[in-house]
């Protein structure tokens, strides 16, 4: 290289790196970070949606808890709402820290909101690992809750939806990418947790089951727990078992569920569900002698089997499939019309539930 020697060239390359600015020409103090997004139906009906963004107000000191600001806007679509919210804030709106999306119950009960769900998936700056949940009584009320223990805005929501903070079998958290997956995939349907906004805390112990377009069914806490067992997402739980006059509570530490779709030729197809539970005895109303323990195991098996079967039938009656039986059927059959076949089979299929309960430990008291 005659006219441009190598070192000069290298310097140009190194200097050109200085042109790269990390935050797209806008400094961090000129950005306003969205931590959670709420979408409600507009009650006044002048527009379709009420979109609320919860912003974290950045704070220089670590001592005081960080403040937040919620800005709402009525619009007919998500993008219009966000564009209008931009006119209400002084800084650039940054979605890269939006980790929770709350949809109101009225919204998800209504058909034809796929545009909203897809807006989140289409935007490149919204994390696909943000949590999606249903808000009660409204998404805005959920965003407004400010627990005392919270130091960063919306952190309480992130901790309770994720597994980093509290772990509970009643919480069935759902990521955005998984929700989109379930909205499209034939044979498995979305499940979203329901957040009840209370004064100063959240209550997340119910779940809403979707078909491909809207919410059909909500499950109470106990059924949510059983569904969680079936989806193998959480293993720690407690189960109340009554036998005669004695009630015992088993604290499970291992729950394993397997299912198999059996289609014998000429006979009615059925789904075999095997649940195996291992746990400790945690609480009894009366003294339980060691010899009687196996009797309680039998009783527990019976009651869990019944609960599992009840909820499976309840979901089947609503023609929903949150566990993915249909997908399992599709994946095990080579013909091209397996999905059409399954739609015929599913409403009448029988469930055979077998449970095995093992009480391994009775705690410190015999």
């Amino acid at each position, binding site marked *: *290289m*005659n*006219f441009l020697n190598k070192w000069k*060239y*290298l310097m*140009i*390359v190194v200097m*050109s*790196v200085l*042109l*790269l600015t990390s935050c*797209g*020409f*806008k400094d961090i103090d000129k950005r306003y970070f969205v931590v959670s997004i709420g979408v409600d139906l507009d009650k006044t009906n002048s527009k379709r949606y009420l979109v609320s963004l919860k912003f974290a107000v950045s704070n220089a000191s670590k001592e005081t808890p960080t403040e937040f600001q919620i800005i709402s806007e009525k619009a007919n679509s998500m993008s219009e709402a966000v564009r209008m919210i931009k006119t209400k804030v002084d800084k650039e709106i940054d979605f890269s820290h939006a980790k929770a999306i709350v949809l109101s119950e009225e919204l998800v009960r209504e058909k034809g909101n796929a545009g909203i769900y897809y807006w989140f998936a289409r935007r*490149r700056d919204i*994390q*696909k*690992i943000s949590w999606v949940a249903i808000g009660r009584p409204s998404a805005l009320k959920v965003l407004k809750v400010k627990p005392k223990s919270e130091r960063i805005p919306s952190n309480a929501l992130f901790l309770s939806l*994720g597994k*980093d903070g509290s772990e509970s079998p009643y919480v069935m958290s759902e*990521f955005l*990418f*998984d929700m*989109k*997956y*379930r*909205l*499209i*995939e*034939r044979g*498995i349907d979305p499940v979203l947790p329901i957040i009840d906004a209370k004064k100063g805390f959240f209550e997340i112990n119910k779940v809403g089951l979707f078909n491909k377009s809207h919410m059909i069914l909500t499950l109470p806490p106990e059924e949510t727990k059983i569904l969680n067992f079936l989806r193998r*997402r959480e293993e720690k739980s407690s189960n109340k078992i009554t036998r005669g006059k004695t009630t015992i509570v088993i604290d499970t530490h291992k729950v394993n569920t397997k299912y198999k779709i059996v289609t014998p030729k000429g006979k009615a197809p059925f789904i075999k569900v095997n649940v195996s539970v291992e746990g400790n005895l945690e609480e009894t109303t009366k003294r339980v002698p060691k010899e009687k323990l196996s009797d309680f195991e039998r009783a527990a098996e019976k009651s869990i089997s019944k609960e599992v079967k009840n909820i499976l039938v309840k979901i089947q009656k609503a023609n929903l499939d949150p566990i*993915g039986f249909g*997908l*399992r059927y*599709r*994946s*095990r*059959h*080579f013909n*091209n019309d*397996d999905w059409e076949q399954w739609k015929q089979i599913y409403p009448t299929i029988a469930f055979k539930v077998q449970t095995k309960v093992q009480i391994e430990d009775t705690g410190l008291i015999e």
Partner: protein
Amino acid sequence: MNRYFLYLVLLNMLINVIIFVPKILIEYRYDGAVMGVLIAIPIGIALNYLFSTTLTKFPQQGLPEIISLLKHHWFGVVHLVGIQLVWFTAGLITLISFIDILTRFINPEMPKLLLLTIFLAALFLIIQMPTDRVMYLLEIILFLNTPLIAFIIFKAFSNEYLSWDSMLEVGTHIWAWPSLKAIAAATYCFSGYTNLIIFNRVIKGKLKLWNFFIITVLGVFNLFTTFFIPIGFHGSDGAQELLYPWITTADSLRLVYSPIERVIFLFLMFYMSISLMSISIHWHVALELLKGTFRGKVNMKKNWIVLSFFGVFSVIGVIYLNALLLNKITVYWLIGRLGFELLVVCIFFFWARRRAA
């Protein structure tokens, strides 16, 4: 011992994520992609074996030196120009596509041309280096990045949201008639060996059989990962909606206790150097082949004329090609490349045999 040969093949296996291979495979998942992948594996391995064993008959010589043995100079020129066009476009597609990814995911406000300038500056520096130095740079970059990419792939495989049922569902469409587009896309993963036409200059010793064995294992694993992991995360029905299946998949992974929770930024960071290296390798080959077409020694002036052509074409490409259009072009480019590759390997194989006999 030929780890350099493996590096060249491995580089193409890693870069297929950027050059729309997963997108094409997923698009034809119900229409012959599975069978296409299965057919592509033996084709890829066979081409690898034929070409590299033939080339080792000319130890430490690149194609320009070998062709200079020919009597007809014009024949050599046609041959070299044809090949160098394919190599240049290979690098160009990777470059345009990765610039699109960078502006889309990291810095939407930054003008694409500025990003291109920075890339081109680095590229021109690398591709003018002697072949052995390019090789060493490739080794260093692969050494730094491959373990971390392997970690991301491990995290993807061990993720509880990975749905094996969806992957199996696509697997049940194995008997669909294989699609040519899928075969062409899948063979791209194996075609790193073709860089040997220049890099044979620095490869010493013969290629042993276990080189090809490793390539087979890596290739099968790589194709499985490329094709099926996005399906496991986004569904057999849903994965086709994604423009960049692997980048969205990286965004669906979560490293709870790492400094950056979102894997997408780590993924893009690793791929930044890998794609830079891939473009450099392709363009280095193109540049060296072009130099071979000139009679006599190549002076600075000719060199910079060639480089400015490279620059002009990439500027035109970045301005006029958006991701959707590029995707369409890439599908046909991959088919053309497969045909061309078959042609080059066969001609070369028979020519070398006749010459030896």
